[in-house]
Each structure stands twice: as C-alpha cells, then as structure tokens.
C-alpha cells in the first residue's frame, strides 16, 4: 500500500478537498475539509450545523406536549426512542408514576427502534463500502417493522407516540402475531447478512483495523452506545441503571475488542439479536392495563367525565388551556438510545413551558472523534468509518 519501497518518492503538495455536504456518502448534511497527501488523509476539519433547526430555542416557547413532535426529528432513524427519552425526562420532574403496561410498551418500541436504527446503519455503511445486497436484505424486514409502527401511531417516521404520563393509544390488536413474524424475518436477515459479511475478505480488509480507537480515548471523547462497546467498555444504561423493567429481562451486552469499524458493525449485529430476544420476552410478559396515568395534572379525563361532571370539564379545560406544569426544578435524564446515551437536561420554572432544554445527543460526542479516527487512513476509508459511527444529522445539529 505504501510507497516506501520505491527509490525516491515524488514530491507532492498537500491538497485540500471538500467532502460533502452534498455527497451521498456524507448523508447530505456533513461536511469535512480534508487535507490530503496523495490519497492519505493528513488532517480533517469537520463542519456541522447544516441541519440546525433551533430545537432548543423553539422548545422554550412551546409547552411540554408540543415539544414531543420535535423530538421525532432528533434521531429520525428511531423516532420512538426519542419520544420515550423526552417523556421520561419530563415525568421524572414530579416524579410521576406511570402504569406498568405503558412501561412495557415503551420498552417494546425502544427495542424495535433499536433494531430499525441498526439496520439502517449497517445497511448504508455496507453500501458505502460497496455491498448493495445487504442493504436490501436488511431493509425488507425493516419495512415490515415500519408497517407496524404505522399501524401503531399512524405515521412511519414522525411518530409522536408517547405522551407525558402515558401513550397516545394502545397497540394494534394483532401486534403479538405480527411482531413474531417480523422478528423471524429480522433474524433471518441478520443471519443472511452476517453470512455475507463476517468472513468476507473484501469487507474485512476494508473495515478491520480501520478507524480504530482505544478505550481510553473513547471514554475521553464521551463515546457511548455501540461505538463505546466496540472498544470493549461494558457500559449500557439498560444494565448499569435499569429503567422500566429492563432488569426483568434476560439478555447480554455484546462487546467488541479492537474498536474498529468491523467491531462496531458486529456489535450492532449482536445488539439486534439481543433486542429480538428482549422483544420476545416483552411480548410474553406484557400485562394488560391502562395506557395513561391517572395523575390529575397531566392526564386528560375520559370523555364521559368531561361531559358528565364539573370536575372533569375543569380538569380538561386546565390541561388544554394552561398546559402541563411540572414542578420547578432541574433534571438530567438519560436513556440508552440506538447510538448511545440520549440525555435530556430540563430546567423547569414551574410554568407550562420549559425554561431550558438541552439535548445530549450521542452523535455529537462520537462525531467529534471523526478527524482522529481517519488521520493516516485513505480517503475511501473516511467514508467507511463515517457509516459505522452512525452519525444522524438530526440529533447532531438539532
């Protein structure tokens, strides 16, 4: 690969190349200015903000319920998970007890979203490297899962499924049989694609040892999620700080060893298998019950109460007109999203609008390390590394 063997290397000037933002491999919104020596990357300066939509500023003038649709757009590969993360943060401000069934459904949609997110990540990453087949193998079952999401909340992408204190509505009646079918197809797709990739010489050459990061550096950069676990660091919020009923499920945290692109992809593969395991258990264990808390501050009363009693109509009026008002205080709430720790720091002043919302997007910390990961690699590797990091501009730029 190197030119060391040649007697006298040619003098070359460093060249500056703009990679992105309008480049298919840069996912349309990321821009990196590369300094190249031949084809080797000497230096790289990433620029972000092309998809900045003022999420935090807008949130300060919207009430708590109106922010839920905005959270769909954070990580648009797994919108349900952002809905859950946000609502959990707001609920922690009381703290609010939510019904058991809601917690189980939230776990279910989180795990399914994780599968969907990883499918896109692996699919597009392998397309970037040049293997199109895997993309179709993974997107067919994903399409079926999205069909279920559509039946669940009426939208495929902009879900807005959770509510503060509960959910929009219950799951469709044939969920159990439909999802079991989906899981079977998902597992088959995972088997097919791992069969195509795991010992594939070309794929191994393109990813093994490429974009590797040590565990110390990853921690210092604030890596979380699959990218951190690919370095062999055992940190998964679902195990370390179990929320909802994650401690009642039987599953394992997959770990990588070298922290390179190959490990990142296969940690994701293994996580999908674990998520399938969890989904099966959740479907078995899910109890019946209400899908909204009965806390009078947040829950709209039933229709017959609104029309039949003065308390009901007052409660309805207060929530609709004055909004949901969490007690004053501040909270940092975190969930394990597909890319890592999704944190919401919310400051409430007791009014119906948050005083300050700060999202801690997992991508932000991960993408920061991108220049370090690709220094000394070839320009084609830059694309291969980026896909494995699964940088989603929606949550990167907010």
């Amino acid at each position, binding site marked *: 690969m190197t030119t060391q063997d040649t007697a006298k290397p040619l003098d070359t000037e460093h060249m500056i190349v703009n990679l992105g933002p309008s480049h298919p491999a840069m996912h349309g919104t990321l821009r990196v200015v590369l300094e190249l020596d031949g084809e080797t990357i000497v230096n790289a300066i990433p620029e972000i903000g092309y998809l900045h939509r003022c999420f935090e500023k807008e949130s300060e003038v919207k009430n708590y319920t109106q922010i839920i649709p905005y959270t769909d757009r954070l990580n648009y590969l797994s919108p349900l998970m952002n809905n859950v993360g946000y609502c959990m943060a707001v609920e922690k401000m009381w703290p609010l007890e939510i019904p058991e069934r809601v917690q189980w459904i939230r776990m279910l949609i989180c795990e399914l979203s994780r599968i969907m997110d990883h499918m896109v990540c692996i699919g597009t990453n392998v397309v970037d490297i040049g293997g199109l087949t895997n993309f179709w193998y993974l997107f067919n079952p994903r399409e079926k899962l999205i069909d279920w999401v559509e039946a669940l909340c009426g939208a495929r992408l902009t879900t807005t499924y959770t509510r503060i204190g509960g959910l929009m509505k219950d799951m469709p009646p044939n969920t159990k049989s439909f999802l079991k079918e989906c899981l079977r197809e998902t597992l088959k797709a995972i088997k097919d694609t791992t069969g195509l990739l795991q010992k594939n010489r070309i794929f191994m050459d393109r990813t093994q040892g490429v974009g590797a990061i040590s565990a110390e550096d990853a921690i210092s*950069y604030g890596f979380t999620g699959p990218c951190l676990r690919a370095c062999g660091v055992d940190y998964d919020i679902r195990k370390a700080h179990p929320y909802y009923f994650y401690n009642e499920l039987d599953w394992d945290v997959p770990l990588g060893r070298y922290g390179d692109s190959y490990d990142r992809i296969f940690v994701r593969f293994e996580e999908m298998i674990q998520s399938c395991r969890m989904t099966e258990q959740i479907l078995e264990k899910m109890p019946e019950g209400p899908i909204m808390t009965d806390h009078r501050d947040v829950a709209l009363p039933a229709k017959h109460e609104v029309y039949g009693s003065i308390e009901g109509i007052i409660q309805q009026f207060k929530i609709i007109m004055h909004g949901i008002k969490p007690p004053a205080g501040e909270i940092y709430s975190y969930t394990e999203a597909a890319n890592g720790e999704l944190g919401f*720091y919310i400051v409430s002043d007791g009014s119906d609008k948050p005083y300050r919302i700060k999202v801690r997007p997992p991508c932000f910390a991960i993408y920061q390390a991108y220049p370090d990961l690709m220094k000394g690699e070839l320009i084609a590797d830059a694309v291969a590394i980026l896909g494995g990091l699964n940088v989603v501009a929606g949550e990167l730029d907010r």
Partner: protein
Amino acid sequence: MQLALNRLKETFGDSILETHSCLGNETAVVEKEKIVEVIRFLRDTQGLEFNFMMDLAGADYPERSERFEVIYHLYSLSTKKRVRIKVRVPEANPVVPSITSLYKAANWFEREAFDMYGIRFDGHPNLKRILTFDEFEGYPLRKDYPVNKRPKIPTPDPLIKV
C-alpha cells in the same frame, strides 16, 4: 451518594458555593476560578473517578447578577455515579476556564455553549461557532434574542463573475 459532594466540600471548602440534590441529581456550584481544579479532582481521585464528561450545557438567567451558567454532567464508569457541577459568570465578563485539557469531549460542547450564549472558554484551542455560521450576529439561546428573529444569511461570492 453524598460522597462526591462531601469530598468536594472537604477538599475545596469555600470554593464550593452551594450544593443540593434536587430529584436525586447531585449538584455543586463552584467558583469559576476553581473549575478546572475541581473537575480534575473529580476525575483523578480514587473512589470518585468521574471519567466521562457526558454533557456540558450553557444556560441564561437574565435576572441574576451572574447571568450565565455552565453546567457540567460527569459520570463515573466504575462507581456508576453522576454529578452535576455548575459555574456562574456575569454578563460583563463571561469567561470560564476551559476543561478541554481534561476531556477531549469538552471541545465541541464548549464551542456549542459559546455559539449559543457567548460564554468564552479560556484556553480552548479552537473557540468558534459550531452550529450557526461564522457571520451570525448575536447569541441565539440568550433569553433576549427574539425567537422569531431571522438572521441574514450571507451569500457567498459567485465562482464565475459575469
């Protein structure tokens, strides 16, 4: 988990201005001159080992004498504890020492706080705007920045001049 806060109070005494644990989130407000020292202490002391800087946020409280706040969220992998550290700075001189020497993650997070609030981080290697563009005027997340204000977007010079 009062441990981290107690250790801080023992070691730094009056430099810890305030501590509380609202909703289980341990919080300490620290003098801004001491922030690097405090965070290094939290990171390197045995038994605390806050090796992750999870989040860094700015915040604006216009009615306070020290208007801006920088909020650090640290996490310890070995003890599984979290701690929140705050510093407050006045509007006239919003400068906070940078912690980029302690955590690589701080680089972009500090740039974001600078971009959104105009809080300057002393010692930061590359303190410039990150989410907005370089020509942006004002600091969008300050409370006195109108939410419906639209900045003028500069048009780049055309490649071919006619």
